[in-house]
């Protein structure tokens, strides 16, 4: 009885065996990701060889960098003395010597604090727009920032931006006076009339009357370096988004003529290269204006860059508008919202959210395109490189200068694209 085998039955689960050593940890990761097949192993080895090739050239070059020298020849001399005659090394002394020029161009040295302050304040102004957690009252600062930045950068009397801003106050006053009238169109009409009368007839004599208290004026031709890129880029970005929204709405409008204007504008701008528009800005804009008008060159460039990216922005936003389900439009209509209410409260928030990646890509493109101003003779970082390379002391330098500017742009553009990815994740509300 006793040796009659009891049928075996396990009463508890066996603990799982640990996976084989080749499938976990570093070895497992390597096998899965780098050496999963013979072909993959060969690719991995080739890639490692490539990385080694690049690093073996770049690392000594950076390690031998010279920061203190007066010319390229002296740099090479120092490197040859220290590391032997065949050693290569970066001559970063040129960056050190020209750092201020790269940042500010020929802006007066004693006024460097002004663009710096404007740059810092820009982040304060941007913060409430980018991060919704911040108090809404900060948006008032965002509103006054453009005038403040203009005053800081170009200097002149403090009353110029104040008087121009007062035009908005005049418009607001007109709106409130008109709001008492029975007809609904009176209020916006009065607002426009008040503001325009203020800007065209009152502002200029008033500025002349007021005392000239303010900062030392700086001329546009003294602008340069990275500051110029940021000025053009940020202004273009700030104005092209609202303009692009209007163009996109116009393109989808039922009003045949308005639609035709918008389509014509967008297709024209998208059909010609930016450099052609910049040439128009530098050669032709004065011909198109009343005789005697003399526009500031940076202002002309900003106008053209803004129009250019507004057309691209319009196409991006049109894509967002087209991607919205029809029910959203019909729902807004069913609630009795008029066109602008529906657009502002229902359509645009969703359409803009869909188009965020495209909008940020347009911003990045705009910022990169600010370098084209070098071709019409403005001294942005690339224009400065050309002039530095023409200088006898730094003749023949390639990698240091282009590398430096490339890194500057890379940091900005890469940062923007990472922010757009963050925003996309944050705003994603569908549950896929």
């Amino acid at each position, binding site marked *: 009885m006793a040796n009659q085998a009891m049928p075996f039955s396990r009463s508890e689960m066996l603990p799982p065996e640990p996976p084989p050593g080749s499938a976990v940890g570093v070895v497992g990761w390597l096998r899965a990701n780098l050496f999963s097949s013979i072909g993959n192993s060969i690719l991995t080895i080739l890639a490692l060889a490539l990385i080694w090739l690049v690093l073996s050239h770049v690392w000594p070059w950076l390690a031998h960098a010279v920061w203190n020298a007066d010319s390229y020849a002296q740099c090479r001399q120092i490197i040859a003395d220290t590391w032997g005659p065949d050693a290569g090394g970066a001559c970063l002394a040129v960056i050190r010597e020209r750092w201020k020029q790269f940042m500010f161009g020929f802006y007066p040295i004693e006024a460097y604090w002004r663009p710096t302050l404007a740059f810092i304040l820009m982040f304060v102004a941007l913060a409430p727009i980018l991060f919704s957690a911040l108090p809404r009252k900060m948006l008032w600062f965002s509103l006054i920032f453009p005038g403040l930045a203009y005053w800081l950068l170009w200097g002149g009397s403090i009353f110029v931006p104040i008087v121009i801003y007062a035009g908005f106050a005049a418009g607001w006053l007109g709106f409130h006076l008109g709001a008492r009238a029975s007809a609904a169109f009176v209020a916006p009409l009065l607002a426009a009339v008040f503001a325009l009368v203020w800007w065209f007839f009152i502002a200029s004599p008033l500025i002349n009357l007021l005392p000239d208290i303010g900062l030392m004026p700086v001329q546009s031709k003294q602008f340069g370096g990275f500051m110029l890129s940021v000025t053009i880029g940020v202004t273009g970005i700030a104005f092209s988004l609202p303009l692009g929204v209007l163009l996109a709405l116009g393109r989808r409008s039922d009003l045949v003529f308005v639609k035709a204007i918008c389509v014509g504008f967008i297709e024209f701008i998208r059909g010609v290269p930016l450099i052609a528009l910049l040439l128009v800005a530098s050669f032709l804009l*004065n011909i198109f204006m009343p005789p005697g008008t003399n526009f500031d060159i940076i202002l002309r460039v900003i106008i053209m860059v803004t129009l250019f990216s507004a057309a691209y922005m319009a196409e991006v936003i049109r894509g967002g508008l087209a991607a919205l389900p029809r029910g959203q439009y019909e729902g807004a209509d069913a609630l009795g919202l008029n066109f602008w209410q529906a657009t502002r409260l229902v359509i645009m928030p969703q359409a803009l959210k869909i188009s965020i990646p495209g909008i940020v890509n347009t911003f990045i493109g705009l910022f990169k395109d600010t370098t084209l101003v070098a071709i019409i003779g403005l001294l942005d970082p690339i224009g400065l490189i050309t002039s530095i390379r023409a200088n006898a002391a730094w003749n023949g330098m390639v990698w240091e200068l*282009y590398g430096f500017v490339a890194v500057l742009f890379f940091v900005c553009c890469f940062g923007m694209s990472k922010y757009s990815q963050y925003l996309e994740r944050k705003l994603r509300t569908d549950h896929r």
Partner: protein
Amino acid sequence: MAITEAHSREPFRLGMLLYDTRYRSITIQIIALIAVLTFFGWIVHNTVANLHALGKTFDFGFLGQRAGYDISQTLIPYTNDSTHGRAALVGILNTLLVAFLGCVTATIIGVFMGVLRLSSNWLIARLASVYVEMFRNVPVLLWILALMAIITDTLPAPSAFRGENASASMLFGDTVALTNRGAYVPWPIFGPGWQVVAGVFILSLIAILLFRRYAHARQEATGQALPVFWISLALFFLPALAADAVVGAVTLDVPTLQRFNFEGGGLIDKSLVALWFALALYTGAFIAEIVRGGIQAISRGQSEAAGALGLRPNRIMSLVILPQALRIIIPPLISQYLNLTKNSSLAIVVGYADVRATLGGITMNQTGRELECMLLMMGFYLLISLAISSLMNWYNSSIALKER
């Protein structure tokens, strides 16, 4: 229904232009029309006044005058005695040349890198994304200038190829020399009888078409697939090469080092090389992203279903994934081609004579006819972009999924 009837029977009053949505749109459009016409009228008025003040007229007669400047790289015969019009034509052809070369190269680079970014090999995927981010986030102008500087300052001069132990050597079996003046490459010379070779080549193209049709019909009928790609490739090269071997009409002229410089072969100017590859690498990064996005957009179920049908991986790619991915890839791809063409207008910074450098550059400065030159130049770019976008619309409607 009754309400609208009553509404429409209401007599028209002037106020309805503002308050009735049916008429308000007309008001708005008329106002917009007047505003736009006023604006253009104002600009034309200013332009006429300004041109008059400057003592200029508006005519295109300068296109028939002698240009008087040299262009280093031309596709059609041109001397400095030619007219401004001919210089503009040289520029247009040069623009089209660099745009074509750039588009082809960018597509190859982009597709390759886009596929590599999806590689299961971690390192390769990372390297490909480093390439993409590096080129996408730095202005193309910088790449053009940097490439030009690299060619000028780091490639060897032709004299470096001379001597017993020369410091530089030619590539691909002594046929290609990369120098700081540009690339010296073998160049075909069309001797007498080249028409025979060309005819054979055209016949082989027709043969490829017929063969593909036959292979398709055969696969539909029997289910057996022929190695279409390899046979097409053989048909493309072999007959023409064989014909040339018999006739001996088309020969390759290989550059050889003479006393001061390379002789023979063809010189691809360094400005063209720099522009071509900078544009191709830059646009290639964008194309890589488009290709990656297109392939990733095809749902996993498609490849799994194809696998369940018993297709091999490369057949899954060519028969199931790619035909669907191309529908997503092609439209943005074409707009990248358009961008590349427009970016080629940066040629002036490396001294490549494209339409912006000849018509919108030297001709404009010499004749002082900014308005006419700009109009012509923008008209040319507009024409190209409208042609390409109508092509794209046609393609889009031809491949669009027919739904509902």
